[in-house]
């Protein structure tokens, strides 16, 4: 339990990675790292597909990365109708670590550029849902 609090609207309630949401409440964005082979995962995973270990630990994601790509959605799926327009993008932190999230409304769509320096921060919606977003570095 607990994962239903993730994101604007969650489609998953039970996962072994639900501690991710507790970290968000503490203001941290965490991935998982395999204690046996050192492979890092974001989004977090409970199991290591590289060495088949089930022994993973949490680590805090880097703060600074580059915006690899983005889009601005003018239509939304069911349950998100009041949100558009909103932008989403992929941040590349280097070393194989990337993150997908919405972009902060503080950045205007026309200001977005591929390759721009960005950072990520946790986010709490008015209804108590917890998420994270990409914002200006």
């Amino acid at each position: 339990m607990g994962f239903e609090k993730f994101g604007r609207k969650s489609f998953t309630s039970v996962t072994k990675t639900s501690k991710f949401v507790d970290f968000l409440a503490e203001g941290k964005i965490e991935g998982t790292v395999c204690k046996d082979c050192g492979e890092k995962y974001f989004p977090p995973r409970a199991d290591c597909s590289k060495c088949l270990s089930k022994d993973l630990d949490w680590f805090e994601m880097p703060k600074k990365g580059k915006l690899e790509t983005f889009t601005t959605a003018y239509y939304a799926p069911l349950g998100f109708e009041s949100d558009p327009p909103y932008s989403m993008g992929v941040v590349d932190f280097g070393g194989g670590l990337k993150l997908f999230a919405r972009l902060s409304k503080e950045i205007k769509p026309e200001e977005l550029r591929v390759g721009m320096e960005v950072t990520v921060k946790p986010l709490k919606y008015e209804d108590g849902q917890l998420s994270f977003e990409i914002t200006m570095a």
Partner: protein
Amino acid sequence: MKKEVAIIGVGQSAFVRGYEGSIRELAFESFREAMQDAGITQKEIDASIFCSAPEYDKQRSPAGVLAEYLGLIPQPTLYVETVCSSSSSGVRVAYSMIKAGLHDIVLVLGFQKMSELTSAESQERMGRGADIQWEAPFGTMMPAYYALYAQAYMAKHGVTHEDLMNVRIKASTYGVINDRAVYRKPVRPEDFRAGDPEAKMAAPVAWPLRVGDCCANADGSSCIILANAEKAKALSKKPVWILGIGAASEAVNMAARPDFTRGLSVTYHAAQQAYRMAGITPKDVKVAEVHDCFTIAEIMAYEGLGFAPTGEGKHLIREKATYKEGRIPVNVDGGLLSKGHPIGATGGSQIRTIVLQLRGEAGPMQVPGEPDIGLVHNIGGVGLYGNITILARD
């Protein structure tokens, strides 16, 4: 040329909005045409495979229900699913069954009745073909995913909105003459004029993709009948042989995608397998169907399939090389953009188009010069799955 498994019958329903019937009746439309095309009876079919994207189906486990309606019991039947590439996956399974010697003749039927859902519901369910745990909570949908590819790809390779528009205009050129297509109106440059309220294609959906860059949902079914060499030679005057097949998969999460500027990795992987198996190179392909769910997807596919080097796909559309009279005709049936995209039926419909082209039976859409080799590129999800099928005539 290896002649082991052939296609001996093809059928397709009209692709429409709001089919006036049930999935059984929809399936019957393409089934009947394929059976008449093959000139066989149900007794000669050893097994059937049904394909759709299950999130649209109210009927759970449709294979048994449809097999009965089509008169295909008590033969074995099963269901195959890889979202938008389900029916080309079905053909891959049928090929394997025949090659293994388990069956002589196998029927593959793809179908989808999307019209019972609203567009928003449909997008939400379509999004469930992506990562529901880590991405759907942000409000993702298919156009947004492909827009992520478009943004990075266009920025790196100098692809413009005009290039995307020209893919759509090409599609409409053939949608107009394809009586099975859902979108049969011509598309003109003025339909994309930004800021013009009359320009229906110009409104942004998920920037940089506009309304005109997205294919339309549709209801439809497709049917492909495959046979081993002995049966194909005995039954068919114009068998079309499966020369090569390739298939690949990719990480579902966008954070795990290696390079958005290179297009879908599954295209490269599956194409390499299919070309190697067929013993041909991209230059040997005379006509192709590619998965143009969005305009950008067609340009990226040109490159993944080796019709152009990476980053150079834009030149094919600028030079009209992918028109019917061009160097490598692509989607001369209107593609997903104009023909419509009834998820589970799409791959079979693409295969049907190439079979008709190789038989010289494509009517007003026929590519000149009697094409002998054709290729089908069918993608599931946002490049989550990819199937390539290479076909050849005798």
